[in-house]
């Protein structure tokens, strides 16, 4: 039976080849698209985990659950104050607390370069909580904080933008919002993850940020490092309770987000993205399936006499149905295999030449092959039934 299927498919190689091209393209694009989506998800995940896996972030304003972090209205609410720091530091399980105030400013260097970058007012705790390290010079110290020093620690991207490759920025002066700051340190590169470049920022003491640069007394973020990953939910709850007390409110006017929440929101986005890409590719599979149906109908007509003979010598209707269904499934399955191979090559090429991470999972390969065979069944069934319904007497005489 399989032998016969092979013989009849190879008898018309050009036609079989052209017909399965539709399936090949469909499966290849599904595999490639899904692998790009999965790769994006993976790289976002790993970069978020790189931010510190036992990090809790307190944001002002209440975030609706499920609405994602984008709609938080961060920066508009002014409910986080310096008093909250002490309340959170005293909680059990909290290793370090990093209060932060973040704004974008225009920054210029002595040599005349200027850039627009994020300036973060932070304390010495920032380094521990956000896991950043100093490459050159020193980090912000408690003394800087107390004395409202006009010092800055530069992210590597900002350092390069302001001073170029050749000049060592250490101990040089920069102007942030027309105020002079001395560069005391350069951060080690953490790498960016596309939508947030962790190297493109400047750290200044929190007190300097609040009193001199922005003239406000609130915070935009409080980041908590939790001692143990397992304590995350407990600490999140305790922090929430503590803040309700210090803010003297019954409904939270703040949000506490863990890495898991951010991951969840982002993977929701990437999943939607992947689904969108895959469904576009899926349309080409349907078109390919129609091509298969077309070819099978032609084949059935061409082989009417053969069908008549097979019936005369004892093929039952289901034998004929099976024969043509097998041919269609063999075609689409073969197309699926080739498609998987090409899709995998495309994913590999994208990773190699476009620098986008891709990952071809076993599940997507199995699903692709299954879908290809399924298309064979769906689009092969009608032609096969048509073959089986032929009347043997008429089929034998067909010219």
């Amino acid at each position, binding site marked *: *039976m399989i032998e*016969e299927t092979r*013989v*009849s498919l190879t*008898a018309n190689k050009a036609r079989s080849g052209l017909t399965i091209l539709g399936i090949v393209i469909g499966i290849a694009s599904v595999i490639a698209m899904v692998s790009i989506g999965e790769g994006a998800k993976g790289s976002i995940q790993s970069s978020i985990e790189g931010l510190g896996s036992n990090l809790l972030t307190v944001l002002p304003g209440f975030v609706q659950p499920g609405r994602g972090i984008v709609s938080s209205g961060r920066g508009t609410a002014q409910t986080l104050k310096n008093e909250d720091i002490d309340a959170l530091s005293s909680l059990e399980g909290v290793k370090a607390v990093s209060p932060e105030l973040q704004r974008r400013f225009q920054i210029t260097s002595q040599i005349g370069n200027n850039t627009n970058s994020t300036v973060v007012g932070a304390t010495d705790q920032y380094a521990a909580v956000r896991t950043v390290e100093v490459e050159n010079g020193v980090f912000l110290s408690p003394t800087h904080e107390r004395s409202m020093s006009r010092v800055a620690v530069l992210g590597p991207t900002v350092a390069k933008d302001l001073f170029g490759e050749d000049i060592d920025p250490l101990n040089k002066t920069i102007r942030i919002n027309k105020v002079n700051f001395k560069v005391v340190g350069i951060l080690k590169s953490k790498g960016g993850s596309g939508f947030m470049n962790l190297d493109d920022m400047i750290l200044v003491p929190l007190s300097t940020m609040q009193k001199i640069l922005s003239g406000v007394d609130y915070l935009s973020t409080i980041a908590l490092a939790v001692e143990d990953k397992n304590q995350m939910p407990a600490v999140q709850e305790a922090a929430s309770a503590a803040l309700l007390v210090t803010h003297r409110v019954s409904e939270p006017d703040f949000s506490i987000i863990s890495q898991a929440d951010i991951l969840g929101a982002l993977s929701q986005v990437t999943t939607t993205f992947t689904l969108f890409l895959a469904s576009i590719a899926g349309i080409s599979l349907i078109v390919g399936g129609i091509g298969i149906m077309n070819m099978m109908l032609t084949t059935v007509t061409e082989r009417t*006499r*053969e069908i*008549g*003979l*097979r*019936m*005369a*010598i*004892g*093929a*039952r*209707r*289901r*034998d004929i149905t099976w024969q043509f269904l097998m041919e269609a499934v063999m075609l689409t399955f073969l197309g699926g295999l080739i498609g998987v191979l090409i899709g995998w090559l495309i994913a590999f090429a994208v990773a190699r030449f476009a620098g986008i991470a891709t990952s071809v999972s076993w599940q997507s390969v199995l699903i692709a092959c299954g879908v290809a065979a399924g298309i064979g069944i769906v689009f092969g069934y009608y032609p096969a039934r048509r073959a089986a319904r032929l009347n*043997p*007497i008429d089929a*034998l005489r067909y010219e």
Partner: protein
Amino acid sequence: MIECRNIEKVYQSGEVETYALRSVSLSVADGEFISITGPSGSGKSTLMNIIGCLDTPTKGEYLLGGENVSELGSDELAEIRNRKIGFVFQSFHLLRRATVLRNVALPLVYASVAKSERLERAAAALRAAAFPEQFWNHLPNQLSGGMMQRVAIARALVNDPLLILADEPTGNLDTKTGDVILDTLQRLHRDEARTIILITHESYVAEHAQRVIQVRDGSIVGDIPVKERRIANNHDHV
């Protein structure tokens, strides 16, 4: 062996009823070699289709080897054809892309016979049809008409049928090659006691049988034993 009792076949197209067969009764004994003749449109093809279990009569009974097959469904008829009937057609009906051996073994595929046994039995059938062994792995289009028809005869023999039904087997062949085919059929009848029904419109061909059934306008008009039976010349196998 074959028993047709008052068989009628009516084709209905709209309001008009066309009688292809009217009350045909016929019996063929085991080991008999008969021919059915008649002009085109006489109903001999319809009769052949019913005898060959490709069609069922509108009325009447048809018993094949003692089994009433006149009211069976299409799958059961397929099984009867597979087990009890061997067909030989005017236009050979060989699969173009299969070798001689695989063509002959084809009916056994539908009888669920294992592959090694299929090939064994196909080889035996080819020998019985006097088909030379050096062509067993050739494709049909590499063979002459007479050779192709002998492949078809071997295919008809492979399932060891009760009945061989040959529909104008010499119609596409010249006289000389046709004689070889008729000789093959006569040998199968004589040496293996095969029951053969030969459908033809040529009286010359029909006279190679023991008995000639004449069909006209849907009825049997003659059932005559052949007095001087022709014996085909074997032109030393083509």
